[in-house]
Every structure is written in C-alpha cells, then in structure tokens.
C-alpha cells in the first residue's frame, strides 16, 4: 500500500492515520444497524450489467454476486480473485480458448428460485450484446467471446443462438474465446457475470428492480434519484459465500447530497460513507488536516488513478519526438500536483503504471530535478526539434473538472517560460471522450496537441490498465481512449502476448516493458498517482481500503453497536 503523505517542505504536517490501508480497522463480528451512504449525484445505473464505475461495482456486491470476486483483505492480497458463485476459479482448456466455471449448489435468487448457469449466460448476453439498450458497461465479453453475429437477447429471444457461452448443465458455464486470454478471472469478477433471470429482465428498467443474488435486496421498486434502501434477502445463504457481507440490517443511499454538506455529516457521524469513494472536498480536507483527532480517522490511499497528459503525435509539431520531449522536460509536475491539491491529492508520477499494479517499477524516464522541469533539457529539446523559440499548441481538458482545469493551467504556466504558448480548450466531460478528445479526427482538426486525461484499471493488472490507452487496436473513431494514438508494434505485441501468458511473473515483466516503451515514445506525460483523502466515521467497523476497487470495501462494512 502507498505510504502516508510525504512532507515536501515548507508546508504543514499532513500525514494522516492511514491504518485502513494496510489493516482492517475495528474488526468486529457485530451485526445490525442501518448503514448510510451518500451520493453527491446519482448512480449512472444500479443494473450490475450496465455500469462502469468502480463505486458501483463495489456497491453492487450487496445484491449481485458474481462468478468470481475479490477477497475482503487489505493490501495486495485483496486484488487476487477468489471464487464466489463458482466453486473455483476458472478452468482454462489447453488451447486457452475455453474457460469453465461450475456453480455452487443451493444458490438462490431473492424469490427462492435456483440460480442456474443459464441465468449467468443470460446476464452476459444482455450486458454485452445489446448495446442498443444497455451500453454503459464495458464490453470485454463482446470483444473476446466467439459468438458469430449474435444480436443479443432483445432481438433474438433464443438464447441458444448465443454460442459464446454454453451451459452443458444447470451448474456449468463455458466461455468460448476467440483468442486466449490469461486474465479471464478478472472479467468473471465483473458485475456483468451476476446472474439475471431472463423473465425478470426489463432491459434498461431492470435497475429499478434488480433480482438479488446477494445478502440484500431492494426494498420495493426503486426510482432512480430517490433514496435507495436495501434490506436483507432472506433467501441468501452465507454458507455459500466466501465473504462476510451481511453485517448491517439495512443499507441506505441518499442521492444528490451536496459535497461540503456530505463531508460535514461524514465527519460528525450522521453519514457513514460517501459511496463515490473519491474522498472529501477541499474544505473538509483543510478541516481534517488541521485536526489531529480527525486525522486519526482518515486514510490517504492511492486511488489507482493515474493522471497524465497525452501528447498527440498527429498534431504538429508533435510529429517530432524532440518537440514532445520539450513538453516532458518543461513540465513542472509539482505545480500540477499543487493544482490537484498538493501531496495529499497524489504522489508525483514518473511513469505510466500506478504503483499498486503488479509490474510497477520505480523508474523516471524524462525525470527532472525535483520534478519541476529542466530548463537546460527543455531548451535542448526545443533546439533539436527546430523550434528554439518555442511554438504554440492547445491543451484540452474537461471544463467541469476544476482540478484538471487547474492542472492544465499549471502546465500552460510552466511551458510558457520556454516560449511554448498554449491555449486551453475546455470541453464538457460528458462528451470529452465521445466527441472531442476521444475523436482522433477532432483532435487533429482542432489541433489538440496536449490532452488532459486520467486512467484507472478495469482490473488490477497491467493489461487491465494499459491495453485501452496504449494498444494500437484500441484507437477508435469515437470514444477513443488511446489519446496518444500510440500504435507501436512492439507494445501491441507485448500486450497481445501477455493475454496468452499464464505465468503471472512473466506477465509482470511484459507490463514493465510496455510501460518503458510507452514512456520512451514520449507521448505520455504522467504527473500524478492520485490519492484520495477518505474519512471513516468512528461508528464504522471492519473498514479497510480495497485495492481491487480503490475505495473502502463496502461489502465488509459493519456498524458498531452500542
């Protein structure tokens, strides 16, 4: 786990307790009470098959059990999948193309009916093959499974036509892949594998009445935006569950809770958890950091999010590597760190892997003294790229993300002294990846040379982190996340190979290599391994930071009863 904030001189002492990062705080077997969550906005969807937010994935574990899940353990161990509905982790065929899982016995939905392999198959079908309805989740299964031109359960109501998954019997599920994929268990841990009974599916409306396979179920039908209440699911059998996720009697989520107010109430104990898990806002941060009592209940873990600027080589003058290098050398990362809120908001990143991902190495290509940029090297790079007096370009950012905006301004400031003139271009986050930064054509047309972005892994592996932002095949016309438009055959080959490599340690080596190659391309300017300031009210028990979800493990939380 990441250590506490290191004090980089001049400022106040801001190290917080951090004990929930490495251990379970207030371990207790007590049950009961109402666990209260707050959301500053609302869930994009509570349908386990239609969501892409870590917080939702963490939260859906209350009512949607998956084939495989992450254990309730702090630290690195928490990232290693364990079987949940399945009896074991996936069993892969020799050719690496078939993954097989077997369901435990006596698994039941909230209505008492049995959970069968068909229900899991249906869940995969609806969440990955019906983009016309459910398009919010990832679509790894769609990409990997060998399923011809299957059109999804809404257009084709014969599930047998879905050949990517087969169910030889009620408890066996076989996944048939186009190509081998070594990290399939991570996919099986996604909420998309949570079983959905076909006759209860209402498409996009399923989120209002999810059929529970976990310890809690919706209290009545839920209207999005209204308070959500989960009550115990009487049909749930803890014996079948590797996790203890049934401590509170009731779970509530209130939506649209204003951030500052939410933080206040978190600190005074009215609320237990901010469900989004992104940490407290600036105002509460100051309160906590100035108060030793509060510090004792705070954690400052890395969120697994890496903040970086992509430098797009298709925009002039960045077709010249030296020009890209000028940016890398000229950037003052401490200023960008300041923009996000100082060391409490993150550690300066020097390469493109977050430290918690296996394969991370503490390297610093293009590093500069104190990470504040190097005048000498920048000027040399500018000289080399033939623009000793600098040049102009644009920096794009998401206009409704204040800190990203500030970071862009910081970059603008530090480049200015070298004559590199940048214009800031803000776009709404809602369309950033679909229309602007995520559209190579747009990037080229509007000359977005430097693009602010941030990335977190879909699952805790190098592949999970890097494939979307570095693999040449993931460059898309719209919704592109390989913003550097990196299409390095070496990188592509390594990533492809890692997918078929069973041995974790050789995979780690490959990830290190990819990281090094990506940095070498000078199209990435990583600057911050983001950290969140989390506060855990005294009344919570069994609190620890889950490395898998990068927030407190919600399923484990309990309340102190007294």
């Amino acid at each position, binding site marked *: 786990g990441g250590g506490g*904030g290191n*004090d*980089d*001189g*001049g*400022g*106040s*002492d*801001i190290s917080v307790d951090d004990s929930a990062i490495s251990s379970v705080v207030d371990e207790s077997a007590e049950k009961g009470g109402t666990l209260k969550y707050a959301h500053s906005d609302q869930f994009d969807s509570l349908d386990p098959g239609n969501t892409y937010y870590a917080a939702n994935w963490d939260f859906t574990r209350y009512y949607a059990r998956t084939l495989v899940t992450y254990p309730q353990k702090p630290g690195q161990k928490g990232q290693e999948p364990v079987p949940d509905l399945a009896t074991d982790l996936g069993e892969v065929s020799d050719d690496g193309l078939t993954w097989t899982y077997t369901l435990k016995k006596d698994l039941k939905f909230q209505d008492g009916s049995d959970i069968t392999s068909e229900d899991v198959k249906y869940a995969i079908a609806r969440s990955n093959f019906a983009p016309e309805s459910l398009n919010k989740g990832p679509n790894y299964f769609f990409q990997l499974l060998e399923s011809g031109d299957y059109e999804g359960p809404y257009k084709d109501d014969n599930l047998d036509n879905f050949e990517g998954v087969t169910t030889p019997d009620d408890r066996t599920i076989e996944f048939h892949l186009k190509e081998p994929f070594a990290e399939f268990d991570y996919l099986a841990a996604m909420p998309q594998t949570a079983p959905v009974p076909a006759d209860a599916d209402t498409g996009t409306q399923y989120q209002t009445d999810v059929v529970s396979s976990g310890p809690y179920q919706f209290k009545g039908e839920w209207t999005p935006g209204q308070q959500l209440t989960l009550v115990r699911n009487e049909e749930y059998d803890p014996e079948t569950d590797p996790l203890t996720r049934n401590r509170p009697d009731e779970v509530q989520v209130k939506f649209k809770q204003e951030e*500052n107010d939410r933080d206040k109430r978190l600190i005074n104990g009215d609320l237990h958890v901010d469900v989004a898990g992104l940490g407290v*806002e*600036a*105002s509460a*941060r*100051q309160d906590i*950091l100035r108060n030793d009592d509060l510090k004792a209940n705070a954690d400052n873990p890395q969120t697994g999010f890496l903040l970086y600027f992509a430098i797009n080589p298709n925009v002039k003058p960045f077709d010249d590597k030296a020009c890209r290098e000028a940016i890398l050398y000229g950037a003052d990362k*401490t*200023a960008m760190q*300041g*923009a996000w*809120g*100082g*060391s*409490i908001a993150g550690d300066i990143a020097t390469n493109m892997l977050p430290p918690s991902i296996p394969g991370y190495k503490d390297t610093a290509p293009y590093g500069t003294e104190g990470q504040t940029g190097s005048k000498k090297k920048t000027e040399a790079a500018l000289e080399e790229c033939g623009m000793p007096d600098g040049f102009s370009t644009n920096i794009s950012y998401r*206009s*409704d993300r*204040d800190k990203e*905006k*500030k970071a862009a*301004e*910081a970059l*603008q*400031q530090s480049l200015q002294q070298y004559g590199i003139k940048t*214009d*800031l*271009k*803000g776009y*709404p986050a809602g369309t950033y990846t679909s229309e602007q930064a995520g559209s190579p054509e747009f990037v080229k047309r*509007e000359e977005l040379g430097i693009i602010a972005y941030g990335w977190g892994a879909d699952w805790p592996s190098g592949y999970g982190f890097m494939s979307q932002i570095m693999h040449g095949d993931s460059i898309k016309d719209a919704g592109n996340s390989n913003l550097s438009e990196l299409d390095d055959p070496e990188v592509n080959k390594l990533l492809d190979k890692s997918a078929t490599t069973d041995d974790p340690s050789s995979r780690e080596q490959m990830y290190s290599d990819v990281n090094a190659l990506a940095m070498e391309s000078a199209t990435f300017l990583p600057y911050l391994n983001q950290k969140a300031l989390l506060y855990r009210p005294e009344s919570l028990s069994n609190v620890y930071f889950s490395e898998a979800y990068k927030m407190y493990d919600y399923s484990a939380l309990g309340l102190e009863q007294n």
Partner: protein
Amino acid sequence: MTAPLDVPGAADEAEPEAIAASGGVRDRGRSLGQIAWMRLRKDKVAMTGGAFVVLMALVALLAPLIAGLLGHPPNQWNREMIDPALGTPMGGLGGMSGDYLFGVEPVTGRDIFSRIVYGARISMLIGFLATLVSVVLGTIMGIIAGYFGGWVDALISRLMDIFLAFPLLLFAMALVGVLPDAAFGLQDNALRIAILVFIIGFFNWPYIGRIIRGQTLSLREREFVEASRSLGASNLYILRKELLPNLVAPILVYSTLLIPTNILFEAALSFLGVGVEPPTATWGGMLSEAVDYYDSAPNFMLAPGLAIFLTVLAFNLFGDGLRDALDPRTQS
C-alpha cells in the same frame, strides 16, 4: 432578471404651463439636456457613482499598466506563496501584503489584485457590448412595434413575451455549450466573448424593447407626429427626427441601468462555469472557486464579490440619478 422600472416619460405632457412660466424662467432657452446635466451635477450620490464607473472603465482600459505597476502578471503562478500541503496561501490574511495587495489565490498563488484588475476588462467589455446589442435591437424592435402598430406590433410583442418566458441563464448555458469552438472567423476567447455578448445582449433586448415600444406608442398618438405627417414627412423622417429625440432619454437611462444587469449576468455565467476560457480572470469565475477557502482565504471571496458589487452599485447609482435628472416630473 431585473423588472423594468417605471420610466420617466420622454413625454413631458404633464408639465404644466405654470411651471414652465414660473419655475422655468431661468431655464428658458436651455435644452432639456442642459437642465438634466445641471440637475445631475447637483446629485452628489449619482456623481460619485459616475466617478466610480469612470474609474473602473479606466482600470479596465489600463489593466496591463496598473497590474504591471502594482501587481504581478495575472496568470502567473506564485507557488512560493502557497502552502504546498493544503493549497492555502501562506501568511495571514490570505497572503495580503504590500507585494500582493489583495493577497493570492489558493492553489496557484496568482495575484488576486491583478486578476481583479484584468477581470474588470471582461466585465466592462461584455457589459458594454451586450448592452449595446440589447439597446440597438430593443430600440429598433420597440420603435417598429410601437410606431407601426397592428400585426407588426402584435408579432413583436409576442416575440418579446417569448423571450421573457425563457429561463435566460439555462438558455445561455446551454447555448454556450452547443456552439462550436471556432466560427465567424473568431476563435477562443474572442469567440467566447462574442458569444457571451450576443447571448446576453440578445436575450435582454425585450426589456428595453418593451419600454421603447410603450414610449413610442404614446408618442405616436401625440399631435406633433400628425403635424409632421401633414407636412408631408415620410415615416423614416418621423421616426428619426420626431420620435428618436424623444426616446434618447429613456434609451440613455435604460442603457445605464442595463449595463450593471449585464455585468451581473456575465458574472453569473462565469460563476456557473460557462464564461470565458481560463486562465483569463473573471470576477464570477473567481467567486465560484472561493467558497472552499472561505476561512483560510476570505479575501479570495471578498475581492471579486466586492468588485462586482461596487461596480454594479456605481452604475445603478449613476443610472438612478440620470433617470431623476431626465425626469421632467421630479422638480426639486
């Protein structure tokens, strides 16, 4: 946003002869403009407002000079002024000192004084230009509606109703969002400012339009218009030579009162994050970031807040005074 206040009649119909004869002895031969100026000069409060307005206009014009003399470049980060851990300004009073007159911004350490000075540019520029757009549009539409009456009037009046029924802020926000990044040969902030001017000006014209229409409507009924027509004057001549001079006073008063409204509007848009692009300083934009630092850097909230307040107040004071001065009904 602002409800239209009652306007002084361009028409001094009510002016009794007796007053012209007795009270007006000294004023004989003076134009109403001169009289208004005499009255305005006596109004200390309005003149103070006017002086402040002039001052702010100068500040906006000479921003680089002033910021250069008394401050630091507005977009320059001064990280040495910031506690790196908390992001708050070092030293008491939000970093206020002889060097940083109004202190520094949290996180970036930018000089608040310079940003206020530069923010004045945006506020004044958009306030003035948008008002110009509203006034030109409103006057033209109002005169046309009032003078020609009939279905033209009905149409324009409905149009004004429609504009007035729109939630302006939402609209402006949405529009700023859907418009492209480069158009009309403009780009970036120039385009942003143009768009803001257009939106603010375009959505505010009905307020002035209604007033001008009302005035025109009553003026049209006056016999001097008929007299002019019976002399053979064309519509254009009547509009220009007979009506317009009578509309100058309300137009002037309303422009002065619309500018502060538009300044507030711009500040509101910036506050909501749809103003000009950063790092350009705007008062509204500064305010929107200030609340998190209310106790560690209250100056960050107060400086732009007071800047908006004082500027708007000054315009309002001056506008009120001008209205009273031009109002034939206020006698003493």
